[in-house]
């Protein structure tokens, strides 16, 4: 019987090969994929987030932990999808039009995946139309958008307007982030929340989908 605590350890130290191997063996031994996610992956990513908040982990450690988590999740996700398991929420995420800076967005996407959300990553330079059609087609209940530049930040407002115009505003909660973004700005443009970092984004997403 595979020692599943090794999955937790592998994610925590960012060992993606071990994360993949443990997951492969566990699935071959018919361990329930939800057990892997709920009992090992999510607690590991929660601990990664805690260490980041406590200044024990920095961006390199977040990145390698996320990579290890993804190596495991890639094997698990198809099984969950095939049997129609529900996720903590379905998030459409991207950087806004004109902004190619995506390390923050990628970290938020990874931390959300690691927290059990289904993440639809639209990538960078995403237009309002792309956001709205993804929300509609994928039936998302959460939108996360990011901007690094003060010049592109104003697109966030346009995206929220587009979501409203498409009649989707009641379907989704909107969260925003990025270096120049603030709580005040989130309120001004009618977003539902703001987080200054990837770990805070998970707490915010959990709060928004529970509300």
């Amino acid at each position, binding site marked *: 019987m595979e020692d599943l605590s090794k999955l937790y350890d592998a994610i925590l130290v960012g060992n993606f090969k071990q994360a993949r191997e443990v997951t492969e063996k566990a699935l071959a031994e018919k361990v329930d994929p939800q057990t892997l996610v709920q009992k090992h992956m999510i607690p590991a990513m929660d601990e990664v987030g805690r260490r980041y908040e406590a200044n024990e982990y*920095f*961006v*390199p*450690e977040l990145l390698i932990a996320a990579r290890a988590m993804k190596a495991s999740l890639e094997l698990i996700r198809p099984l969950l999808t095939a049997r129609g398991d529900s996720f903590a929420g379905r998030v459409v995420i991207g950087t806004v039009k*004109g902004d190619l800076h995506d390390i923050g967005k990628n970290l938020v996407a990874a931390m959300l995946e690691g927290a059990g959300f289904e993440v639809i990553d639209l990538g960078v*330079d995403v237009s309002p139309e792309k956001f709205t059609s993804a929300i509609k087609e994928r039936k998302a209940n959460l939108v996360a958008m990011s901007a690094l530049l*003060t010049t592109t930040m104003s697109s966030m407002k346009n995206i929220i307007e587009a979501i409203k115009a498409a009649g989707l505003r009641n379907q989704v909660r909107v969260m925003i982030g990025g270096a*120049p973004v603030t709580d005040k700005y989130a309120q001004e443009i009618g977003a539902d929340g703001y987080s200054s970092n990837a770990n805070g984004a998970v707490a915010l997403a959990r709060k928004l989908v529970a509300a």
Partner: protein
Amino acid sequence: MTSRDRWLALFADEKPDRIPTDYWATDEVTARLQRELRCATKEELYCKLSIDGLTDIEAPKTVEHHPDDPEADIWGLRRAPINYGGGVYDEFANHPLADITTVEQVHAFKWPSADDRDYVQFARSLRDASRHRVIRAGDFEPFLLYCAMRGMEQAMMDLVTEPEIAQAALDHIFDYHYSVNQRLFELGKGQIDVTYVAEDLGGQTALLFSLAQIRKFILPNQKKMADLARSYGIHVFYHTDGAARDIIPDLINVTGIEVLNPIQWRCPGMERESLARDFGDRVIFHGAIDNQQTLPFGTTQDVRNEVLDNIRIFSGRRWICAPCHNLQPITPTANITTMYETIHEYGRL
């Protein structure tokens, strides 16, 4: 006092006649300001707004492209213009070290040579430069370049998972800049005032890297570069974005920086009062006019208040008034002129 005298007075720990100023902006902003303020040249703009600034002198490249990629620069980087609305940034379109897995491959990459710069032209530019402003030559920001060459996320992960690859590449980048700077400093002996050393170590809320990572990968080469500058009597101007408080003692004690830019005081730990109190006797603060909220989105009264706050907070310390990083096209002209008018009106020492 000339603009140069003003800056040099700070380096000598003497009192200039007024708080010196500097200017950082995107090309679009400079073009707009020149147009709106009817200035034919950047020099006229500096005079009109009483900007001290500095003069950058470069040694032009004699080789523009990488031997294996005629469309790439000397580091093998291709660029693509990205319109962000109101302006254009060149973003990197490839990462030439992305697929490298061994140190041998790092060494086998065709690194640029310091020979491929026009030092005759550099000496000529230096000779012809006005002595009215401080002269800056040489720069060094190796990890930023490594991120471009490797891909940012991989570059950051390398610090944990592929430390030998990161170190080898950073050393190649260092060797090139050290050789270039050595030649610039030698040719410009006694004429260069300032050199730039930089690395973005802070994010919006915390350091991007651990102290151990910074001390291992960043500081040793930085110190060598700063020591080189110092041996020529050149002052070290240091740039790091963000919440960098925890590394400032190392920057002062190990690297030996003299100017700290840009003082993003809204970031945790970067509060001006505490920086002035804890480090104000050892570094000159440069920047500190917020470029994420106040300048782009504040009113002229907000800008004015911030300049006045800084005058008060940095009183008895050394401060060069400048925007925190490049002014962006979204920034109203009135906010920019207010910043310079306020410091001109109240910055007399």
